[in-house]
């Protein structure tokens, strides 16, 4: 039995990797070089604090994934030799506004209660934070530290996944744009832009923003929209920053990454000066010593967003064997997708409870 996976981003490849580890046969179809790819443009956080403030089960699911991350990274390294620079020493969020900090503390407190108390984080005032991160500037009034957070090199992750899928015997076809699907229970045939076809007994739609078009053919609503995020990267610097934050992290090559903005402007992935300037201001506010540092590149990428921002895991009600997966935080959730989703995809018994994430909520 072959499972077709449409989409070779971090979501599709993680599921493919997990299925292959279980000995399943997998064919991944991935689009062209110029497609929108959140997997290439993302910030690289394995981030927990603040996630799922209104949805404790999302918080739990993310946390479960973070817990699985070390093993997942280890598996990838063993198989491919690629060290994807996972670091989970905790993360810090910086605040320059008193009210924002207070609001965030309140949100985290209530989430902590909702998940039963096991939700470690600490509130730091300016001087407390300065002990942890001596480079902060006077505008930073305080911050939140949580040992749950971490980061990874998302591009190495993508490379390791591509390599791992091939090494485990998976078929990964790139430049394979799916343009149509003929579906029946446990019999799926997809048509590619170049006229080729591919067949499988199961199918996972993990096509990021491409899902909204293909979804209905498999009986999914697939209500995803693009949300633009811009990111800046500086020249390489000597290492100084031990902890990532939601907006600033020093990547393993030395550059400081700054981001990401949020803009509801549709499928537009062009960067703009106003946003670049805003991100630069934020960086210099938090770390004044970055003022003379060169920005070498910026980019805009498109987040794959469901209406409430939470993941969607949906079995087709129309065709047996069809699944739809999408999420915003595909890096954070990659480990769960590789380790836990395969059971849900093949439909065996020990499935994770994903009922909170069905499409029925829309």
């Amino acid at each position, binding site marked *: 039995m072959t499972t077709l996976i449409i989409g*070779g981003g971090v979501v599709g490849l993680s599921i493919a990797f997990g299925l292959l580890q279980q000995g399943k046969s997998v064919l991944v179809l*991935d689009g*062209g*070089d*110029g497609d929108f*790819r959140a997997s*290439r443009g993302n910030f690289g956080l394995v981030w927990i604090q603040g996630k799922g403030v209104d949805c404790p089960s999302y918080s739990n699911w993310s946390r479960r994934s973070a817990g699985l991350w070390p093993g997942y990274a280890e598996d990838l390294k063993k198989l491919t030799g690629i060290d994807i620079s996972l670091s989970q020493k905790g993360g810090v969020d910086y605040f320059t506004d008193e009210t924002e900090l207070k609001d965030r503390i309140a949100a985290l407190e209530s989430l902590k209660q909702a998940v039963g108390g096991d939700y470690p984080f600490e509130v730091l005032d300016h001087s407390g934070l300065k002990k942890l991160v001596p480079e902060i500037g006077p505008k930073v009034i305080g911050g939140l530290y949580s040992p749950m957070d971490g980061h990874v090199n998302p*591009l190495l992750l*993508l*490379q390791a996944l*591509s*390599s791992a899928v*091939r090494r485990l015997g998976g078929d*990964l*076809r*790139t*430049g394979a744009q799916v343009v149509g699907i003929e579906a029946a229970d446990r019999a799926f045939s997809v048509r590619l832009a170049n006229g080729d076809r591919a067949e499988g007994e199961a199918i996972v739609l993990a096509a990021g923003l491409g899902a909204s078009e293909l979804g209905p053919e498999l009986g999914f609503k697939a209500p995803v929209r693009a949300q633009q995020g811009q990111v*800046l990267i*500086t*020249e390489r610097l000597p290492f100084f920053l031990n902890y990532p934050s939601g907006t600033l992290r020093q990547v393993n*090559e030395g550059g400081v990454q*700054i981001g990401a903005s949020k803009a509801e402007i549709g499928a537009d992935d*062009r*960067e*703009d*000066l*106003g946003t*670049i*300037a805003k991100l*630069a*201001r934020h*960086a*210099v*506010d938090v770390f004044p010593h*970055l*003022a*003379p*540092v*060169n*920005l*070498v*590149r*910026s*980019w805009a990428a498109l987040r794959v967003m469901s209406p409430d921002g939470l993941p969607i895991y949906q079995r087709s009600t129309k065709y047996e064997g069809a699944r739809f997966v999408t999420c915003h935080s595909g890096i954070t959730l990659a480990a769960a997708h590789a380790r836990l989703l395969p059971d849900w995809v093949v439909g065996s018994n020990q499935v994770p409870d994903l009922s909170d994430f069905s499409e029925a909520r829309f």
Partner: protein
Amino acid sequence: MSRDIYDIAIIGAGPAGMAAAIEADRRGASVVLLDEQPRPGGQIYRNVGIATPRQREVLGQDYAKGDALVTALERSGAKHLSDITVWQITGTGRIAYSRKNQAEQLEARQVIVATGATERPVPLPGWTLPGVLTAGAAQILMKSGGLVAEDAVLVGSGPLLYLIAAQMVAAGSPPKAMIETQTGSDLQAAMKHLGGALRGWRYLAKGLSLIAQLKRAGVRRYTGAGDIKVLGSDRAEAVSFTWKGRELRIETDTVLLHQGVVPNTQITRSLQLDHRYEEDQRCFVPVTDTFGLSSSPIVSVAGDGAGIGGAAVAALSGQLAALGALHRLDLITNETFETSSAPILETRAKELAVRPFLDRAYPPSQQTLKPVDTTIICRCEEVTAGDIRRYAALGCKGPNQAKAFGRSGMGPCQGRYCGLTVTEILSAENGISQQETGALRIRSPIKPVTLGELAAYQEEEHA
């Protein structure tokens, strides 16, 4: 922050940009010309306004021709912003640039991109060693450093290589040797374009006279050389190569590389204009009409940035681009537009006649188009040709995926010196045309800018 609005903004003050600015100003448009260099001239006429008699003597007649343009520009009413770095242009004609470490911007109704060419990458073993420069760099050092390379070895092919060698001879410092990659069969293939080239006979005559000068000066030439390597541990020490079945080695601490020039497409790519792969010149060029108008109705491209044609063609195409822009802005009548452009179009066609011959006679060498696995192709991130081939085996079809996998094109040069090579390698590995393989997406800033400068930049609120 208020910003200035111009009829026409021109990026690049080489022959194309200067000619465009002069033409547009003469016909009543408000014009701004932006350039990174302190003085107008571009690469070819760099510093001509302040050149010493000795520099003029060494660099020759063609260099001195720049005087006329520079003088006309200085007399014109075009505003010339020198010493500035453009780091973003938007599709709406907004131009952001740095001046004296301050972010500024202006706006234009029509934009003419005249950013010229860069030298084609020459990925050879050892090409990253100190002491290895491009031949063009050696020429720039004569123009704006007052320096000439001593006992240098020139490597590669193309008309410019002979010109630079002859200039070095005139400076009293002839190259130690020229290791040339073009072969007899390249010349044969070129011969069928000779008929057309004869229309541009002056260029051919000039080329032959340069070669004769080198011969007179006793410069040793090795044509049809292969397997070229720059040797050295911390800097260039020697060049080795094969020639007529023999292995040769020449000691030198200065190696000057050249495989022709290619359009600098950083700005046109950042604007996401349409580009096409030009088989004859083996590079991407922006798609333009006869007047240089690109796929954007407000952006034209003039000069080598629109396809390699040389200085004379660049100046003519600058004029044409200006006429086109003036016409679109209704600053000249239909009739003026047509009568003014007709003779320029005719002259340009004559000037271009020699190109097909030159392209065939001096193609980039196979060694640099298909570097061996161990050769570094991305200088910034030190990615090798073998790395790119490995990514191709992982399913990588285009340079953007290769960039994500291995960082080629992510360094400060943003793919200026690896982009074309990556496309060539992927195209060969995947059996897909260069056009379909595509090119790197170029993002702002086109050149690095400090966070402090950006942070200080305040945008007017959107209405």
